[in-house]
């Protein structure tokens, strides 16, 4: 146990920021930056993708369907390889490991997140969309003021676990030499040679702390919204909707 603190004292800079400033930014900071960026780009993209998936227009629905099913059917590692080898060929110059991993995570996670968002949207009673349209709101207004606030809130627990898996998936950047936390830990391990358990214990604890606090934070946010609506959020009564009101194939 004492070893753990010694290792931390000797290598905290490498674990935190990699070789920065003499080399590229790495370590924990890079892991967090990559996760945050991937989330910030993938989440809005997944909302658009979900909307395309349930769009009445085939030209939107079919590509979104293919996107989601192809990406859910192949392992993340393969997507990394494809991005790593294919993208430089396509655009004619090399891209950094960070960009490669960011693209991969955005592409891959958007597919998963979009299915969660789609589920959230489709779980709402059809009357919500109809009521918004009947008040004169167009598709985008109905979506942004009525449908998505409810759908995303209801999908929050699933969304959070997907966000957490983004953080964990950044570790796969290791195989394309992305200098993130796992890469740093491995460097430390290579220097010490004799203390793999202690090093990887530090690594595991670090990931756990990040992911656990994110889950707790999300739980607190959820609780706060719930308290504001005082328990019953009313969709129970809206869900009493009569079958004839549930049709959602509105002309737009």
């Amino acid at each position, binding site marked *: 146990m004492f070893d753990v603190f010694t290792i931390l004292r000797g290598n905290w800079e490498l674990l935190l920021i990699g070789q920065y400033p003499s080399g590229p930014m790495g370590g924990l900071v890079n892991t967090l930056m990559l996760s945050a960026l991937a989330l910030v780009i993938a989440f809005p993209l997944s909302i658009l993708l979900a909307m395309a998936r349930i769009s009445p227009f085939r030209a939107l629905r079919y590509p979104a369907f293919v996107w989601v099913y192809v990406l859910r059917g192949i392992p993340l590692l393969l997507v990394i390889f494809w991005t790593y080898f294919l993208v430089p060929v396509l655009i004619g110059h090399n891209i950094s490991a960070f960009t490669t991993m960011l693209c991969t995570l955005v592409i891959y996670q958007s597919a998963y997140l979009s299915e969660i968002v789609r589920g959230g949207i489709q779980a709402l*009673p059809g009357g919500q969309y109809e009521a918004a349209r009947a008040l004169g709101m167009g598709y985008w207004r109905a979506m942004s003021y009525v449908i998505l606030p409810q759908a995303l809130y209801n999908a929050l627990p699933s969304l959070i676990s997907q966000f957490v898996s983004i953080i964990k998936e950044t570790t796969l950047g290791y195989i394309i030499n992305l200098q993130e936390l796992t890469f740093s830990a491995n460097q430390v391990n290579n220097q010490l040679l004799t203390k793999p358990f202690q090093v990887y214990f530090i690594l595991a604890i670090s990931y756990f702390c990040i992911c656990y606090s994110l889950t707790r934070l999300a739980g607190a946010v959820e609780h706060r919204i719930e308290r504001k609506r005082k328990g019953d959020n009313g969709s129970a009564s809206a869900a009493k909707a009569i079958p004839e009101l549930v049709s959602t194939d509105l002309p737009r």
Partner: protein
Amino acid sequence: MKPMITFSNIDKWYGEYRALTTINAEISKGEVVVVCGPSGSGKSTLIRTVNRLEAIQGGQILFEGHDIHGTDANVNRLRSRIGFVFQSFNLFPHLSVLDNVVLSPTKVKGIKGSAAKKQAMELLDRVGMAHKAGAYPGQLSGGQQQRVAIARALAMEPPVMLFDEPTSALDPEMVGEVLSVMRGLAKEGMTMMCVTHEMNFAREVADTIWFMDAGQILEKATPEVFFSEPSHPRAQRFISDLRSH
């Protein structure tokens, strides 16, 4: 005087099933039309075609001279001038009562927040719900929710209000509070089209009753005539069934 809403030769199909058959009718300004008839007769379908929640396969519906189902119709603009009240209320559960009422005037009409709030409070007061402005829909009874839904529809200041079985999802003791709000609206001269099973309301408030069965309007009459001497045999049977209960 030009009618406010004109149905001409409306046909509506659900696949092979013909839900509406050659509907021809008119609603004038200030008129209160109550649509009644047995379940499955097409009443709700008909009222939902007026603001294009249902598409039609034939005919034309004119609202203030605009063809609602026309390809170049500005649906959002037309809908914002047609108040619609649903059987299942459909309040937005993530917004407070006040925000439910304010949402559309501010986001669709672009009215300023403070002015919209003032108007919303007046409307909530009118439906007897001002004391619940800060509550969330989940905390309200069905009757209260429906009254808020009426205020929400009125907030767009529509010249016509449509009610699709507004009291059918309510417990019996809450029907009265919603009907009295509707009665008040009718008295103030609001143009209304109501689908309802509340025959006392129809008798008291309607200017005209449309009796529907199997997707057709079989009879249009004043309440006096409809309830005492309906001319269509199907309407006669409907009335005698009402009396026998």
